[in-house]
């Protein structure tokens, strides 16, 4: 059994990372050329890690299931990336970013990792600008910032509503340079099927070529998993259709502990579900809460009239609207953290104030912002600030320049013009804070197997703040892993190339082939999507925004039954030796069907509310989350034992030496 040692360096928190870097072992440039590293995934974490490792001199093999590394789902991140630059002079600092992130995570993240994240955050912006990432700038030519939820400063750098795209294309360009040099060997349309352990160390992976179905063996001295999160467990989420848990689940089954699986982020501002046909949900960036005001009608009668189409939201006067976030949380208002905003929306809708046909939507309104910006612009131009027409026109142009692509996206999907009528939004699954357990060096409990980005668990605790995912992905990939992996690889300078002819590779390959054949042979009567949708409903209804013991116990049983049904009755068309998307999906869903059970078990065992994990049994009189610091200030790290719910719990106690544990308040 692997020991749960976080390997956090000693010393004051602000010196830990510097001291650690000064003391860990290095690999000489000549020796780096003898060492191979596999990186699975090409998002912000995987792409930046692959590029940086190759720059350092390692031989990198990079894998993605998409047809190009540029398409990894980091591309869809909208709002921005945090960095403690204090360019706005509003009192920001490394300490504040560290503090906000720990508090935002509801005191369930590892202090030392979060501090390191805050320390390297400024380097990320410098690096990206040097790469030619076109961040938004002000008229003086300097970088612009905006605010995100849960903080009182403006530290978010952005490129309109396409920050993830620009950062990913930056990492992709860094990869391209190394692909051209031959230092990265790129494998597009390849899916990792399993990790291979030799003498207890990760020494390679088995992949499936998605074009011709060929099962391939790839060896390396270390394996880095950067395959993202598992939000698609819910079927409907803001994740891409191909996003999956398979890489992290496979390493879990081979010995990597899975940490805090139940910590999921439900993002408050997504386009509401419109019907059963829906295949995925679309996020409306949190940046919109800088200017948008969230409200529902004050009376249920008005809400009903709006639902039935008898009343226009724009006709409802101010005194009949309930800006419930501003009412409940005056200090942070519409910019409370995501978990708080999501629960508040659910509470209003559950009580009967929902505003769309399904009753599951609230308004996000830009009318006030349009007037505010319009007046400002009119004043600047010396025009009449009381001319509503002029003000509206200028205001809409100002809003468009900030959020144009988001408004366009909304209009295309919903067929309503958000400049004229308030947007309708509802929470949806967006991000998973839980993931593979890693130590301070980002190594999992399998020696030589690392996990970075959303695939690991370490930095966001029970709730992630907006614009912090991009920060963490790039911090891990550009500035943390490239250092820490050297300490491990220093032992491998004399190992030489790893052979793929060993029995370990053969066994792993055979297992994969067997699994594929058995899925194809089943020839049942229900499609893969049928099972995925069923699983998603169970998780959303019983392990979603609020959870209780009875529901969670039921969910565990229902998932078990569904999994048995899947293996008995699933219909996977086609053959294994061709382009076969349903087969690829069946493999991913089979892993979700196992993870789902562990997810529910983790939620059941954590008998407290914290961040995105809300247990109905544990709440304050005002309905706020109630933590139990005495009994639950730990990371749940689960060890696989053959059946998801037989997993054994290991606890990593969290010590807060620099930040006092307090009840999180945004009032």
């Amino acid at each position: 059994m692997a020991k749960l040692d976080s390997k956090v360096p000693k010393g004051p928190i602000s010196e830990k990372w510097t001291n650690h870097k000064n003391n860990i072992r290095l690999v000489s440039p000549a020796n780096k050329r003898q060492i191979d590293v596999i990186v699975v995934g090409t998002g912000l974490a995987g792409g930046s890690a692959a590029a940086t490792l190759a720059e350092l001199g390692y031989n990198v093999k990079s894998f993605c299931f998409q047809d190009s590394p540029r398409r990894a789902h980091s591309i869809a991140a909208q709002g921005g990336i945090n960095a403690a630059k204090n360019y706005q002079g509003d009192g920001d600092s490394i300490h504040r970013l560290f503090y906000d992130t720990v508090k935002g995570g509801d005191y369930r993240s590892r202090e030392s990792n979060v501090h390191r994240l805050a320390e390297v955050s400024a380097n990320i912006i410098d690096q990206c600008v040097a790469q030619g990432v076109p961040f938004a700038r002000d008229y003086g030519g300097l970088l612009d910032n905006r605010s995100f939820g849960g903080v009182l400063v403006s530290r978010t750098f952005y490129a309109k509503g396409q920050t993830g795209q620009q950062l990913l294309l930056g990492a992709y360009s860094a990869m391209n340079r190394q692909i051209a040099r031959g230092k990265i060997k790129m494998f597009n349309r390849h899916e990792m099927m399993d990790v291979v352990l030799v003498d207890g160390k990760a020494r390679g992976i088995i992949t499936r070529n998605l074009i011709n179905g060929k099962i391939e063996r790839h060896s390396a001295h270390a394996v880095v998993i950067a395959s993202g999160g598992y939000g698609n467990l819910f079927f409907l989420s803001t994740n891409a259709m191909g996003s999956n848990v398979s890489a992290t689940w496979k390493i879990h089954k081979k010995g990597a502990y899975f940490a805090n699986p139940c910590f999921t982020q439900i993002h408050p501002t997504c386009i509401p579900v419109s019907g059963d046909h829906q295949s995925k949900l679309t996020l409306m960036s949190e940046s919109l809460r800088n200017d948008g005001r969230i409200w529902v009608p004050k009376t249920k009668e008005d809400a009903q009239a709006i639902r039935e189409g008898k009343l226009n939201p724009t006709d409802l006067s101010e005194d009949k609207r309930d800006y419930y976030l501003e009412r409940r949380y005056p200090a942070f208002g519409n910019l409370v953290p995501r978990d708080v905003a999501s629960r508040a929306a659910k509470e209003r809708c559950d009580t009967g104030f929902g505003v769309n046909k399904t009753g599951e939507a609230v308004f996000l309104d830009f009318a006030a912002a349009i007037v505010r910006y319009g007046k400002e612009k009119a004043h600047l131009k010396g025009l009449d600030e009381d001319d509503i027409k002029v003000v509206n026109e200028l205001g809409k142009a100002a809003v468009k320049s900030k959020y144009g692509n988001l408004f366009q996206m909304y209009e295309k999907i919903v067929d309503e013009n958000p400049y004229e009528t308030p947007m309708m939004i509802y929470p949806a699954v967006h991000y998973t804070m839980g993931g593979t357990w890693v130590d301070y060096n980002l190594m999992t409990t399998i020696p030589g197997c690392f996990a970075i980005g959303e695939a690991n668990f370490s930095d966001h605790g029970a709730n992630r703040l907006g614009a912090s995912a991009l920060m963490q992905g790039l911090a891990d990939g550009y500035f943390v892993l490239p250092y820490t992996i050297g300490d491990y690889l220093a032992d491998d300078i004399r190992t030489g190339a790893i052979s793929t002819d060993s029995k370990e590779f053969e066994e792993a390959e055979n297992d994969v082939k067997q699994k594929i054949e058995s899925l194809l042979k089943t020839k049942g009567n229900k499609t893969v999507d049928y099972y995925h949708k069923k699983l998603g409903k169970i998780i959303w209804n019983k392990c979603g925004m609020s959870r209780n013991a009875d529901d969670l116990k039921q969910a565990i049983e229902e998932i078990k039954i569904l999994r048995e049904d899947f293996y008995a009755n699933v219909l996977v068309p086609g053959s294994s030796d061709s382009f076969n998307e349903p087969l690829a999906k069946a493999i991913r869903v089979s892993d979700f069907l196992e993870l789902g059970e562990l997810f529910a078990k983790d939620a059941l065992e954590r008998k407290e509310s914290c961040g995105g994990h809300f247990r109905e049994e544990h709440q304050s009189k005002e309905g706020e989350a109630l933590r139990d610091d005495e009994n639950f200030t730990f990371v749940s790290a689960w060890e696989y034992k053959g059946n998801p719910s037989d997993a054994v719990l290991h606890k990593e106690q969290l010590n807060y030496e620099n930040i006092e544990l307090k009840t999180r308040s945004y009032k």
Partner: protein
Amino acid sequence: MKLTLKVWRQKNSKEKGKIESYDIDKISPDMSFLEMMDVLNEKLTIEGLDPVAFDHDCREGICGSCSMFINGEAHGPDRLVTTCQLHMRKFNDGETIYIEPFRAKTFPVIKDLVVDRSSFDRIQHAGGFISVNTSGNTQDANSIPIEKQKADNAFDAATCIGCGACVATCKNSSAMLFVSAKVSQYALLPQGKIEATDRVLNMVKQMDDEGFGNCTNTGACEVECPKGISLENIARLNREFIKAKIKS
């Protein structure tokens, strides 16, 4: 809605393909085009037939995976959207819809509607980057102020999603809009100036070596581009190319 779909079916890159006809019913106008394709595929799967292969991933118009030619237009009849953001309300009940892959010699079909766009990646390998190593010691991000207009133009060029609609639309299968977007992004920024000469020469060479056609200024690419990448970028590419040719 009831629809007749005429879909390009091709088993793999070696075999010949042909159009197959499918009738489909109970399509909601609120569905996206790909959700309509999901319905078709569920039906085909249950009937024991091979579902239609198509590329797709983010389904929010940013990853650039989806790539269908619908009724003779890349990404279908709507403007400034990818296929995944195209909604069925843009079609009429009873309509016949033709669905084909992006066609170009440089985009060989892998299966059905899935094409191989790795030629785009290879063009980027040739010069789509600024040579800066990760170090943590690059200069402070605010040490080079950049004129807002230029930064905004660079951003607009950088929003290209690499879907290939420009190539599929162009009668010459030219990749000029795609290449010009990357060249423009870096040409507009001070960081990109140092390698500007080599970059444009190498990227254009790779583009030619891949077999993409020439630009004859028809402008169809701009019309069909889901991100509205402007033709001005092609003009800038030409200027950059001439400049580089003279210099070298």
